[in-house]
């Protein structure tokens, strides 16, 4: 695997343009490789025959790994296995075969090949784990690639395996309570592209383990206030009241369904994108805060969301929430409007990738058609995990959300 950009550390093989057995001349394009920046052409550095392909399309290999062998037609290449696994350059063969990267300072013209065993290539990249963590995972039957490491650089350590084991084996404490359990219909795991990996790596270096950025937008809440009034007058006889926050939650659920890339979690090696929307609602309690989760918010009506939030918040304050009631959120909302807060930023609750900070509604002078008018405005700020959500994606989500709140009938669409 040749370094096709100055910062490239590994490459993903998009497709081979030559097959095993093809005759190769210097300069022939062998394959397309996705680097951290772009899809690049991998060019032959020597003449011969493409005798062996180690890394199949879709696989990833570290720079310097043997991914294939170009040699003379009858040359013995049996000792170039490429099965040694990333990093160490293969032993130079005595003849002068081969091709591809790894510049050899002594003999520039007949360098060495690269290779990554096919087995490893199919993995999502190297998983960092301590030896005992690997050993325990194997013994306990825990899939180590599904575990987010808490050690340095995301290293999976013993306690991560133990925690994973606990969460797997802990019996449901109250079988009667409807518990949220992830199943394959609720989310999909997307293999992270080279570009996404690089974005993640760079941003973490710059800003910390959850590289967060913020997007703020003002929302005109006049129609939402009207909607709330009419809902509440319709339901007056039943004694039901919905809040602006309930409408915000409903709109967030609807907007997330349209922008699933904001309804996602970062995991080491992949991004989990959810179909279902489970909204964590930040609730202040005596000695801190907790975020009970409205499960399947996208399937629920405003009144149901409202009554659930009220009920969950009540039990949160009494510290009576079950663990499954405050875990499993795919996105969170924090509202400090009732404290007269105009705008604020909220901190992401990993592995969620986004949280929306909702300010209070204030009568604000705004310019409309060249005239200054007073409108009820609400400022919302979304914190985004940049590894998962890019600025444009977050902005589009906020656009949709703003549209829904400014014209609540859009929520019905």
């Amino acid at each position: 695997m040749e370094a096709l950009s100055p910062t490239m550390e590994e490459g993903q093989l998009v497709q081979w343009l030559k097959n095993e057995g093809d005759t190769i001349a210097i300069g022939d394009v062998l394959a397309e490789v996705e680097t951290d920046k772009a899809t690049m052409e991998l060019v032959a550095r020597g003449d011969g025959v493409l005798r062996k392909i180690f890394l199949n399309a879709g696989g990833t290999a570290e720079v310097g790994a043997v991914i294939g062998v170009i040699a003379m037609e009858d040359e013995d290449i049996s000792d170039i296995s490429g099965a040694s696994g990333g990093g160490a350059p293969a032993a130079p063969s005595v003849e002068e075969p081969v091709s591809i990267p790894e510049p050899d300072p002594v003999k520039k013209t007949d360098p060495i090949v690269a290779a990554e065993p096919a087995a490893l290539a199919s993995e999502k990249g190297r998983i960092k784990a301590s030896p005992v963590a690997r050993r325990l995972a194997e013994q306990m039957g825990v899939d180590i690639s599904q575990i987010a490491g808490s050690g340095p650089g995301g290293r999976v350590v013993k306690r991560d395996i133990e925690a994973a084991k606990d969460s797997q084996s802990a019996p449901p404490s109250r079988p009667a309570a409807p518990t949220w359990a992830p199943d394959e219909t609720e989310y999909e795991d997307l293999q992270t592209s080279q570009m996404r990996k690089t974005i993640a790596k760079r941003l973490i270096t710059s800003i910390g383990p959850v590289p967060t950025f913020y997007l703020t937008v003002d929302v005109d809440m006049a129609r939402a206030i009207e909607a709330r009034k009419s809902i509440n007058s319709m339901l007056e006889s039943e004694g039901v009241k919905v809040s602006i926050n309930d409408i915000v939650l409903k709109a967030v659920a609807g907007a997330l369904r349209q922008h699933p890339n904001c309804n996602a979690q970062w995991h080491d090696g992949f991004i989990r994108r959810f179909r279902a929307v489970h909204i964590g609602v930040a609730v202040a309690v005596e000695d801190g805060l907790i975020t009970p989760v409205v499960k399947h918010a996208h399937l629920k009506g405003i009144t149901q969301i409202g009554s659930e939030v009220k009920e969950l918040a009540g039990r949160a304050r009494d510290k009576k929430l079950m663990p499954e009631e405050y875990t499993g959120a795919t996105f969170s909302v924090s509202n400090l409007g009732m404290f007269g807060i105009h705008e604020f930023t909220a901190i992401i609750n990993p592995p969620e990738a986004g949280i929306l900070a909702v300010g209070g509604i204030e009568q604000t002078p705004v310019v409309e058609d060249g005239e200054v008018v007073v409108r009820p405005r609400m400022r919302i700020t979304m914190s985004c995990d940049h590894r998962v959500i890019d600025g444009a994606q977050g902005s589009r989500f906020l656009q949709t959300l703003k549209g829904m709140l400014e014209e609540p009938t859009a929520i019905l669409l």
Partner: protein
Amino acid sequence: MAIMTYREALNAALSEEMERDPDVFLMGEEVAEYDGAYKVSKGLLDTFGSQRVVDSPISELGFTGLGVGAAMAGLRPVIEFMTFNFAFLAIDQVINSAAKMHYMSEGQFQMPIVFRGPTGAALQLSAQHSQACETYYSHAPGCKVVTPGTPADAKGLLKAAIRDNDPVAFMEGELLYNFKGEVPDDDDFVIPLGVADLKHEGEDVSIITHGKMIHVALQAAQKLEKDGINADVLDLRTIRPLDMNAILETVRKTNRIVYLEEGWPYAGTGAQIVTMIQEEAFDYLDAPIIRVTQADVPMPYAKNLEILAKPSAKHVVEAVNKVLYR
């Protein structure tokens, strides 16, 4: 159990072994008339006479060579160095004669000799007199190295060293001589060489160490306990032969290792033991092993710098937190 000082325990071991075997004799600077620079040989001259408790001139190479010759002739010498810092002058006799004699004579000569004295730093003795010398001796095949940290270990191990038919560098601690502890009353209390001792039990992390440093490790273990962390403190007691089974047992138990030694890091005892651990128990490690050692500089004379250069309980706690990813 009697409570006695480390010094008294060594004295008792010498006395008992000299009583037991007339071939045992003690030689070194000031060991007879002055009762020893650290009073370890107190009263021995009166009991055993000047044939068996011998004052030597200030000539380490000379009297160490005398000892080697005496051992070849069938005696069991105990050679006292006022400190192992002075023994650099004598190391040719230890490494080139004593440690190799059995091998080079094709087994014709055994070498039942003990070289003993304090090793390591005391307080403000500066660069030339504050060195932990274990690795110089453990480096050479043929020489056993013993580093007792408590009075009981001092007594039991010295008796074993004197009875051993190979040369033993028996390395004490100047700051340990007044340290008191329980010693079994048994007048034939012998601790075999090459058996480590778990000085404190825990399941979260292992602090492996030897000699004087066990007290630093135990101090660290107490601090950690307040933080809810329980440490195994494994006292190797002998550097050669090494109780690898005990090391592997604690590695397999806790998965996280801090190695503590008084000497320098470069090619120190820790370098050897960490290598052996990763060779034999790689799959049991949850974190890279961290060594806590003296800073890689000659020991400073200035008190504040000396404190900074020496391994301390604080350093150990920091290392433990690191291997626990805290």
